[in-house]
């Protein structure tokens, strides 16, 4: 600090010091002359400089001069400067933006007190299928008997309608233990936390509002506490408002939190009269307890608890809360950060070779400076200052770019990134960006500068050689950089190709239906008003009838909302097939997904009928119960024989036999990444209706959704003014949304690799230009001796292809490693898929050969005499 202050003071006094020193020397000489003494023949300037050198001006002055010189010389070559700054900025910007995501999901502490102690706990029940839910009585026993937790809280999520306000809406609500907020270390912004009594049935009608819903729906009314709101038609008293930046510890943010309301005594009696589950258990471990110790503790309690009659195998899973919340996003963001780092590496080594080319065009200038006595360190420091200047510009621009990309990520990213606190740019991000800056300076600045350090320019000039690239091993280093670049591009592009192919397979391959002109709406009919089956069916029938009457609507079908393709359906039923012994082993039960539809459903989605007939409108509650199954079902449970005419008992109506009247094609209804499962379609009027309260309506219309949706909403409002429409979108939109995550990763990797290929082309161009320039004399001599241009071109291309082949081999190896990293994200694509790799390699080889053709052509057109005379 003292040094800096003194330096600054000295800089300000510089002129005066110079003047004083001159005056002093003049005085000295004058006196010498007057007194007849001999006058030294020393150089006044030299004396002055050596005296003032002590004040350390030269260092600073040189640096300042270098900076000004660097500005001038960068300004003289705007194309180079723009390319270099642009590509580095892009690299730094993309890396930093990706890092803000990684930072938000994996590095930043969760916004709770001592977040490292928080865990997510669940029972894993294995029977026919695996379920991750916890029996409420078991949770109560854990909470009472454990020795490793400071506290435990449970919550379940429900979509409910919020009414009694200007316009009814669907809200995401949570029923949570009163202990949840204190456990996290959060207190409400207004009012108070849920009372302890809200944990018990009959006392749960208390609510906490999220800050967002409080502002948007209640006008940030500070007197809201104590007032009543309506959820699914029931009154809840507002106890408080949550803080603005509160992050609910779930995958989705909660709009409203209400009491858990369990009949604890009834649950603990375990007599089957009251039996519920909780889907999320959050615990805070005692200090020093590991997840495994906590799991052991809970398992020990579990061992004494009764197992339900269907005897599932019960294990317990304890995950740190962060892994539960961000597990998937973490893998993706690591992939993205790694990809963008590779990208930056390419960009900076590229700019390195570009600046080397530029250096070679300046070799004479630099050589002359050396001959005129510039110290080697001065020349190197000047080059370093030039590249640092570039890097600093690029970093500044990159940071701006990162902020832009961050906004785009929040707006379009599929991960609801906004809930991660809007991807803050904190100290960690700034540190990361600075590290990137250093990296770029090192990679692209040191490369050319180091090259300068081991040759003797003066001698080189004297000997008439092209001095800078005169040494063979320098060229070899350059080739290694080029080969590495090609390798990285191949690894990156092959990963991108796999991701794209995987996305393509998921989105378009074997969907089993056509999505054109199909619109899907969903409505949650609450139990409170539609618990009565007649009311429910009358609503559905009227809705279908009126919707079909909208001009331009061709057909309308009901279905269960969660089963609308691509579906999220993992609900399964068991069916009993007539004439077969009651299954003892769960594997022999006819497990299937159930869907309640009408005949139009298959026509709208163009699902092919393979055998028999489709449901008809005449299949009603009073006619023979029938079902249609899909070909998976027929294949799995009626191997070889026709399924038609067999009878099933499904869970729909107790003791009713349903006759299979048709077999239809398979449709993906368990998400696009899963294979079609056996499905039984029941005509909706022959079902018990319960599942249809989660109502989906499929509409076929050539009209755009923009003109159908308002009509549909109006019809719903006319039928029931209190009933919100949960969603209405085209099936295509649903399909796109369901693949938005893999698509997002694929798109970003694809953009990276496009830029990567572009950069590799620039890089190879730079390297080949360097090499040909180094061999100019040789080429000129050969041409003078009669070599044809074609021979020269093929010679240079031959050298370039050696480099490409090396890069290719390394790239293939690297690609296998990289593809292993993303193998978990792939669907129906093998990580080692040779076709993708071959296509990528061919593309890269072609592109790089084109890049090296240019300098080769230029070299072949060289006039040997002009060149040789130059020396």
């Amino acid at each position: 600090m003292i040094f800096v202050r003194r330096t600054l003071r000295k800089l300000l006094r510089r002129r005066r010091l110079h003047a004083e020193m001159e005056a002093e020397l003049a005085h000295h000489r004058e006196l010498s002359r007057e007194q007849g003494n001999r006058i030294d023949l020393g150089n006044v300037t030299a004396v002055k400089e050596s005296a003032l050198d002590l004040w350390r001006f030269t260092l600073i002055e040189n640096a300042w001069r270098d900076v000004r010189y660097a500005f001038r010389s960068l300004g003289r070559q705007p194309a180079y400067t723009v390319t270099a700054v642009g590509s580095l900025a892009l690299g730094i910007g993309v890396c930093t933006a990706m890092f803000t995501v990684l930072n938000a999901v994996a590095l930043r502490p969760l916004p709770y007190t001592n977040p490292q102690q928080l865990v997510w706990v669940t029972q894993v029940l294995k029977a026919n299928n695996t379920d991750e839910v916890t029996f409420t009585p078991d949770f109560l026993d854990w909470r009472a008997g454990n020795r490793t937790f400071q506290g435990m809280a449970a919550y379940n999520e429900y979509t409910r309608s919020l009414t009694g306000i200007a316009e009814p809406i669907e809200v995401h609500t949570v029923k949570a233990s009163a202990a949840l907020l204190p456990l996290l270390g959060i207190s409400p912004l207004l009012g108070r936390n849920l009372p302890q009594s809200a944990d018990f049935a009959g006392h749960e009608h208390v609510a906490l509002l999220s800050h967002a819903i409080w502002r948007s729906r209640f006008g940030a009314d500070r007197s809201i506490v104590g007032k009543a709101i309506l959820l699914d038609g029931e009154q809840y008293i507002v106890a408080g408002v949550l803080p603005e930046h509160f992050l609910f510890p779930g995958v989705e943010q909660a709009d409203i939190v209400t009491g858990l309301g369990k009949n604890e005594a009834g649950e603990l009696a375990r007599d089957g009269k009251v039996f519920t589950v909780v889907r999320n258990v959050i615990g805070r471990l005692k200090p020093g307890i590991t997840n495994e110790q906590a799991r052991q503790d809970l398992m020990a309690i579990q061992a004494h608890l009764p197992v339900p009659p269907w005897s599932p195998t019960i294990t317990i899973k304890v995950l740190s809360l962060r892994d539960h919340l961000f597990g998937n996003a973490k893998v993706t963001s690591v992939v993205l950060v790694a990809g963008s780092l590779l990208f930056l590496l390419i960009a900076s080594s590229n700019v390195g070779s570009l600046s080397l080319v530029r250096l070679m065009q300046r070799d004479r200038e630099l050589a002359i400076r050396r001959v005129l006595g510039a110290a080697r360190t001065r020349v190197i420091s000047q080059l370093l200052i030039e590249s640092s200047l570039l890097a600093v510009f690029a970093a500044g621009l990159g940071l701006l770019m990162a902020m832009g990309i961050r906004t785009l990520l929040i707006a379009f990213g599929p991960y609801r990134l906004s809930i991660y606190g809007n991807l803050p740019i904190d100290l960690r991000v700034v540190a990361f960006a600075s590290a990137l800056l250093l990296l770029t300076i090192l990679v692209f600045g040191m490369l050319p500068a180091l090259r300068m350090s081991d040759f003797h320019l003066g001698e080189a000039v004297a000997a008439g050689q092209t001095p800078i690239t005169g040494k063979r091993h320098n060229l070899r280093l350059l080739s290694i950089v080029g080969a590495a670049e090609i390798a990285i591009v191949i690894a990156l592009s092959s990963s991108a190709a796999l991701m794209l192919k995987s996305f393509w397979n998921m989105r378009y391959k074997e969907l089993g239906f056509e999505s054109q002109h199909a619109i899907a709406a969903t409505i949650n009919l609450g139990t409170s008003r539609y618990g009565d089956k007649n009311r429910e069916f009358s609503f559905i029938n009227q809705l279908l009838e009126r919707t079909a009457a909208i001009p331009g609507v061709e057909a309308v079908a009901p279905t269960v909302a969660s089963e609308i393709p691509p579906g999220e359906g993992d609900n399964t039923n068991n069916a009993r097939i007539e004439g077969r012994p009651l299954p003892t082993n769960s594997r022999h039960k006819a497990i299937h997904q159930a869907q309640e539809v009408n005949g139009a459903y298959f026509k709208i989605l163009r699902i092919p009928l393979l055998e028999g007939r489709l449901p008809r409108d005449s299949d009603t509650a009073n006619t023979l119960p029938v079902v249609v199954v899909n070909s998976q079902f027929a294949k799995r449970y009626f191997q070889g024989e026709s399924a038609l005419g067999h009878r099933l008992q499904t869970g729909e109506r107790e003791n009713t036999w349903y006759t299979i009247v048709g077999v239809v094609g398979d449709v993906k209804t368990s998400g696009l990444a899963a294979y079609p499962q056996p499905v039984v379609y029941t005509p909706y009027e022959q079902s018990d209706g319960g599942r249809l309260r989660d109502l989906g309506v499929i509409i076929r219309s050539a009209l755009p959704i923009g003109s159908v949706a308002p009509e549909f909403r109006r019809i719903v409002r006319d039928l029931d003014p209190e009933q919100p429409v949960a969603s209405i979108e085209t099936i295509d939109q649903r399909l796109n949304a369901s693949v938005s995550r893999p698509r997002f990763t694929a798109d970003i990797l694809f953009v990276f690799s496009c830029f990567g290929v572009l950069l590799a082309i620039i890089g190879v161009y730079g390297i080949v230009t360097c090499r040909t320039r180094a061999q100019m004399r040789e080429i000129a001599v050969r041409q003078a001796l009669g070599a044809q241009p074609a021979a020269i071109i093929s010679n240079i291309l031959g050298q370039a292809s050696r480099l490409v082949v090396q890069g290719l081999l390394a790239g293939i190896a690297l690609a296998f490693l990289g593809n292993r990293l993303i193998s978990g994200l792939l669907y129906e694509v093998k990580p080692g898929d040779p076709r993708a790799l071959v296509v990528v390699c061919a593309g890269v080889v072609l592109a790089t050969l084109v890049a090296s053709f240019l300098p080769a052509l230029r070299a072949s057109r060289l006039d040997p005499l002009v060149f040789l005379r130059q020396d």
Partner: protein
Amino acid sequence: MGKSQNLLQGTLDLLILHALQRETMHGYGIAQTIHLLSDEVLTVEEGSLYPALSRLELDGCISSAWGLSENNRKAKYYKITGRGRKILIGQQESWTRLSAAVQQVLAR
């Protein structure tokens, strides 16, 4: 440099400080004093004098101020500081020891 002797490395500082102990002087005066005190054996050139003065001033051994010289011209006068005196004593002792040791070696 003629007949005059080269100054041993490091002794110039000692001589300058010693000269300044007697009185405040400008650069030329210091050179002349050393020249005369050494019976015209030692000559201090401006090329070594002024860098040495600069260094000593930066080290805080001497301070400087502009004043009028004997012939009514502006000149920079140097003055020894407390720190300079302390260093001078230390350097004098070590010089005495060194020269005695050299004498002893040559006498045998």
